[in-house]
């Protein structure tokens, strides 16, 4: 997943270097390519270390549970609000177009497909990239620059396992849960609008909504949410764990955690949609 980002970066560097007409074109390309491949190698090493440390004992169960609470429970109000508003607004905006074709009764089906297949995982992931990803980048970044991570290391403990593995596992577990919850809340928002306009009952609305959803929709939605959760965790932790240059570095880590994870989430979304379309 980081590969796409780096390919884009590579193209950007090459374009930038080709525009440089001061006579140092080769040197610029060479230096930037060096940095690029060095960064790529760092990301790869970080990922490999994550998988190794995840399966090797000792395990930090308590910290994983604490992080699940931080990521999951503490994001609930925000997810509730955004999920509800998404469902409500999407229904309200879709109604006029469907009414033009006399298809307003299809609203529950349309909303269910849109929410389950795309909106719930995507909105949850984007909200969490902003809230959780930036938090991880800033927290680990400040721990790095204030030598707290070094202090863990010299006391014979494994900071990577305690800080990184627990956080990445927490986002990987909790984003799918939050995504399902966001889906439910989004449908509730939609139901309120439909009920208000057409006096459709709760049972009729949800029966119609679930009739249009198949197993593949739920499966692809959960797969996306798991992948998004992993991306948010790993990007946030990578940026924070490797931050430097004092407070400036902490700010940069938090910022990069959000920007890179959002970028990757959209790329993953696009790829998964293509794969699911082939499977359908």
């Amino acid at each position, binding site marked *: 997943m980081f590969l796409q980002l780096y390919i884009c970066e590579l193209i950007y560097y090459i374009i930038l270097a080709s525009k440089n007409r001061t006579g140092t074109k080769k040197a610029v390309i060479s230096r930037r390519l060096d940095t690029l491949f060095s960064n790529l190698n760092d990301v790869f090493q970080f990922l490999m270390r994550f998988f190794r440390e995840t399966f090797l004992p*000792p395990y930090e169960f308590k910290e994983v549970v604490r992080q699940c609470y931080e990521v999951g429970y503490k994001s609930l109000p925000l997810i509730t609000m955004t999920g509800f508003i998404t469902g409500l607004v999407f229904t309200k905006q879709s109604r006029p177009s469907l009414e033009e074709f006399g298809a307003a009764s299809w609203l529950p089906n349309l909303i269910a497909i849109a929410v389950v297949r795309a909106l719930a995982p995507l909105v949850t992931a984007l909200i969490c990239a902003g809230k959780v990803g930036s938090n991880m980048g800033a*927290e680990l970044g*400040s*721990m790095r620059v*204030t*030598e*707290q991570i*070094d*202090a*863990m*290391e*010299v*006391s*014979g*403990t*494994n900071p990577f396992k305690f800080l990184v593995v627990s956080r990445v596992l927490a986002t990987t577990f909790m984003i799918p849960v939050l995504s399902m919850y966001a889906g439910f809340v989004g449908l509730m928002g939609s139901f309120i609008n439909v009920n208000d306009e057409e006096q459709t009952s709760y049972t009729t609305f949800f029966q119609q909504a679930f009739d249009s959803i198949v197993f593949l929709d739920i499966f692809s939605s959960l797969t996306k949410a798991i992948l998004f959760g992993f991306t948010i965790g790993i990007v946030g932790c990578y940026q924070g764990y490797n931050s430097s240059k004092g407070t400036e570095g902490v700010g940069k880590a938090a910022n990069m955690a959000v920007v890179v994870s959002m970028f990757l989430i959209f790329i993953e979304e696009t790829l998964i949609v293509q794969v699911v379309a082939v499977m359908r």
Partner: protein
Amino acid sequence: MEKVKFIPDTNKSVITIKNLKKSFGDLEVLRGVDLNLYQGENLVVLGRSGTGKSVLIKVISGLLKKDSGYVHVLGYDMEKIVPKELQYLRRKIGFSFQNSALYDSMTVRENLEFPLVRNRRNLTRKEINLAVEDVLEGVGLLQTINQMPSELSGGQRKRIGIARTLILRPEVMLYDEPTAGLDPITCIDINNLINEVQTTYNTSSIIITHDLTCAKATGDRIVMLLEGQFQRQGSFDEVFNTDDERVKTFYDYNFVK
């Protein structure tokens, strides 16, 4: 307060460093450092900011990798040490950071428990509590046990930082600027604590500082790091009894002559 002179047994070296070199890019920080830390002694490394004092102890603790040279710590060659051995070795080395590096999100109790529960997994809750309270009492801060680091003063943070390293009963202590940023009275308290740690826990210590009062109060032997190498070595008076302008300037500015 000048401490009673300790005569180390020069046959028992806990840390041996030969021709250590370390650079950051083009900047050569350590240019061939030779050092022996003997069993039970407090060795003070003096030098101006940016001369590589902290780099030296970070290389000793394995936080930084050397470029070349020989570093031998408690029987382990840092060149050939494997991760498991390094983790074991680190339990025997206490590192007190310049800014204390207390974990912000944990209480004092949790800060002290953190290394203990992860290195001695068979301890009961009662034993852990006892160890935490014992070491906190040793640094005179038992009353802060449930406080957060943000609620502590600079001096208290330093003491808790030292207590956190002592909980694993280290054989070697590395102090990075222990009195930096503290008022003179608190500096004296920290100096006394360093001496207490030496006698109570029988540790051998390297104290990195540019504070001559701290050096005089805690050091059994003093070395002066100048231009990436140890230029002067001996007791406090031996080090500063010289015509070397660089050393004299360092002394004069410390005591505002």
